[in-house]
């Protein structure tokens, strides 16, 4: 059985969903989550973001934004992003409340999310006794960087979930080193327990 992966960003909309999209397209077992308190999408101005609770279906968000200002949201790429997301899963999921199962590798797209994941896993009490690799890759939250980041994550996942890798714990440092030769992202890596 292949490894299980989780990709985590702040709102489970752009970076994690782009990675979810490319990974699931290549047949990997992947889930995605957000660590924020709510899903925040850009609005007509910086002071007026669109805020939805986690669990609101992507389709509902799409319809809502479409009814508010189709031109603006088409132009800034939100409608396209939500359209892609609704084809992948029903709704954005929150790491702390929705990530019930264990994963072999968790990839966060921002240091803030990495902190939340590590802290949350400790808070859960580590009762399942299952180690997981938590990796942070700093990706900027815009469409272009999310796309590039998604490709980089795919490459990393392909290196991890490879038949040649019999002992991931042993190989992980080498994999990360190899990967960093190709991609100049700042990374953090640790072992945490479910």
């Amino acid at each position, binding site marked *: 059985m292949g490894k299980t992966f989780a990709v985590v960003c702040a709102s489970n909309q752009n970076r994690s969903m782009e990675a979810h999209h490319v990974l699931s397209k290549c047949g990997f077992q992947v889930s995605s989550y957000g660590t924020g308190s709510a899903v925040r999408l850009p609005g007509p101005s910086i002071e007026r973001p669109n805020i939805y609770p986690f669990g609101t279906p992507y389709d509902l968000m799409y319809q809502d934004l479409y009814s508010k200002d189709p031109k603006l949201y088409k132009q800034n790429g939100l409608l396209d992003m939500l359209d892609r997301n609704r084809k992948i899963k029903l709704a954005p999921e929150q790491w702390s409340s929705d990530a019930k199962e264990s994963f072999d590798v968790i990839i966060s797209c921002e240091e803030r999310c990495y902190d939340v994941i*590590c802290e949350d896993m*400790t808070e859960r009490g580590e009762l399942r*006794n299952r180690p997981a690799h938590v990796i942070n890759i700093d990706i900027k939250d815009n469409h272009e960087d999310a796309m590039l980041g998604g490709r980089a994550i795919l490459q990393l996942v392909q290196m991890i979930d490879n038949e040649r890798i019999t002992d991931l714990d042993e190989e992980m440092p080498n994999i990360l080193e190899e990967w960093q030769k190709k991609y100049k992202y700042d990374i*953090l890596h*640790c072992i945490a327990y479910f």
Partner: protein
Amino acid sequence: MDIQYSIQDNRINVLFDRASDSKKDQQLRIEALISFQQIIENEKHLLEPGLFQIICGFLKDSMFEIREWTIDFLEYTFTTCGLNRSLLKDSLGKIIPTVGYTVSFEESTNIVKKAILWNAGVYPLIYERVCENAYDAEQLWSTSTSIKSQIMRYFDSPGTKQGIKICAVKYLQSVIKVQSRHVHDSQVVPQNDISLALCPPSHPILNPLMLEKEAIAIINGLYNLFDKESSIVITAIINALGPVFRSRPQYIYPLIKIVKKWKHNPPDHLPETPLKSAKKAIKIQLTSLLRIPVFESSSFANEIFDSILILGGKNDPMKFPRQYRRLLQQKDGMEDGTRQKVYGAQGSSMLPIDPTQFALPFVVDVIHLALQSIPQERLNQAKQALQQREARLAALRTLPTPPPTNKQERRSRKTLDPRLEFVREATPKSPSPPPVVMTEDEMTLIKTESSNSTQSEDSTIKPEFSPPNLYDDDMEIDDAATVDIEVPQDQQMDVLETENKVDSIPEPEPQPLPPPVPSFKFQPYALPSPETLSDDQCHSFIRNALKNILEIDAMLSPDAKGKRSDVVLTTLSNGKRMSKNQLHMMASRLLTRGLDLSSEKSKKTCDELREMIIQYILEDFKNRTDFALTWFDEEWYHDSIMLSEDPSYKPNYVIWLNRLLDRIMPTLEDRIFFTQFLLNVPELQEDIVDRIKIFLNDPDRMSLGFYTISELINQRPPSRPFCMKILLAYCLHKDIRTRGSAISTANKWFPDHPTIGPNIESFALQSIKQLCDECPPPLFDYHYHVDSVNDPKMIEDENELMKWNNNDVERHLDLFLSICSKKSELFDQLLSIYVKTPESMQMLIRKNAPKMVETVGINGLLNLFLTFPEGAEDFVLKMLVVYTNKQVTPPAQLVNTAKSVIMERNLEGRFLFPIIAFFEKGEIIRNLPKVINTLDATDKQRDIVKKVFLKILTPPPNGTAPITPSELLVSLHQMDKAGISLKQSVEG
């Protein structure tokens, strides 16, 4: 496998028979076990200790898959299945020996890892079981202890894999938690906590003191691994200890010590990135501890805070709880030199402010403000109270003061260590206090101190136990456990406790004498009248003030900006914070609203100040964009207010924005900052945007120009019309590269954008309609002229040279063809214009046929054949020729359509030239007379027909020619029958 079944369920018997039959196919055996698990999932009551024993037998099977299934099944039943806890405890004795065998002898790393993790899960259960059943669990405890020793040995063995160590860390975490005592300020409820408290005092197998010592030795051993293990293992240790810190806060302090040690001596065996990950893991765990309400008031909280700062927590203040954020600001202030650090005996827990360092005027101001806010009545009451108190104190001073007791003196001299405070707090509530875990260095220090201490210190306090040396570097727990604990030579913990208890004795604080209060009269305070300054002095002061502001701003590191959006400079006397933005705002308002502009001299000064700001921004535009924006916002706002009051007012905003742009644009290369600047200024006018032409005309900075203009069109709708005007004009530019960039920029919005898309379409149509004119339209002025946007002379000069030529036609067609590729129906418009143009123009248009073919593709070509208007035959023929020349074999659909259209419209023989080679033999012979008929005795026509014949006779790559040369010759000889003149036949 010989199985003594005690199970009555036949299904399980059959399945186990099948699974244990090593002669059977591997898949069948696995399937039997999976079926068994499915039965158990539905009927959990079938599980009993005997069954577990049988299942464990599979752990010694030769097949890896069977062994892996077994350990997975055990993990399922003990962790996720939710079985009765007493059943699990009763089953342990049957399972543990086999799992112990797996931990020691299993070949597969994966199974060993799973076995260790399973042990981590059941260790509390084993302990609970042994505590409850003192007399029948000796074997269970001894097996469990040997497993523990085996797992710890993995750390000493050089070849141990990282994965095994990671799992072993988790197992040791479980051991540490169980073998430690519960303390009152832990996050866990005592009832749910499996700790040493569970063990009865006179248990025949378990010795709580020994177990605790072992736990301490393990945790020290784990901390010692920080100096030699990889970052994977280090982060695993830190994260595994996270839950331990919450339930056993006594283990936090050694980690703090390590962090402090790392401040000066970071582990040199770790490269940069792994070290960063390790530090980050510690920082996360420590920060999360600070947020736990139970620990808020703990004495070690400040130590944790200091450790986080060492690990770089200062850069992320929002992670801290509110009270620590405040403390952080105070520390920041002190580091900046604005306050003197005065740590007293209480260490970092005391408010780090020394009031004696405040400037006298500031103190007077504060007192004055405070007094103003107090009603006169209360002041009078306070005055009376003070006078009474002074009288009372004067009477007291006449009495002799008793000398301080030894204890009081000692206590007042002693520096309070927060660690000791922690122990003191814990002491009264715990019957035997948990030992403070210490590092090796610390123990050595204490040993030395203890040897120097005298017995007279406090002989009444007895240590509750005297542990052996537990602070070895390695994980040799066996050694630690065998040390005779009754030998009192090693007194480390003893000494520690003794010292702690000396400190912890609550003693009454001596009542401090209040300071003598000077008697003075309260009088109303009046400020002196302000000094009058001359105009020159005023202007000089203002200039200096602005200069000072700019100097302060320049001193702030540009790096700080990226980390925090608004850097706090200082806290003002009224308690409000002064941020960098406010500084900018202050400077901007000084220029606009702050000065009286009634005199010419004032206006001149104001302009000088503005010039000063421009110079300042130009020095480092990239890092001073924020300042520039704040200033221009303020100028624009001030202009709008002034204009509403006085329409003749001359606005400053445009003048100074233009001046700034004129100076930065010649040298600017940074795309993001410039574009962002233009996007953020309050208003854009045509004259301002016109400056982008400077970039558009510069081959090196053209992309910056188009990027800027595209962003302005996108994000600033009010300036869209004049930006679009520039962009569309560049779509007709003479230079092919510039034109190409402009077209690809414009194409972004076509056809989706509801307003820009139609705008582009109408411009493209307009530009091809201009092909009907005799002369090309006047050229757009692509140059930017300072103060003369439309210089008629220049345009006229250029236009004198303009006549339609191939390049002109091409630039008028390019945008149109580019949008045609997205909206093919537009191509008909070109045909309708083509038929209206003179012959010379038609020729020029036809020269662009290769581009057009590329644009319309095969479908467009077919459509063109079916619908072309009269007069466009040459155009269609040219398109057909270009297409057939490009393709080795044109699609049959095109050949057939062309054929039928030639027949329908009775087109000339030359229409057959491009396609006749692809006809069948009979059709070629039938159509040959039409081809011969085109011969008009000119060399040019003869050449064309010759090429057609060659094409007919050349075989396609994978076939034969439709007609042979001899057949062609025979056909030519029979031409006269088809009504072709002899002359033409001969020529053919």
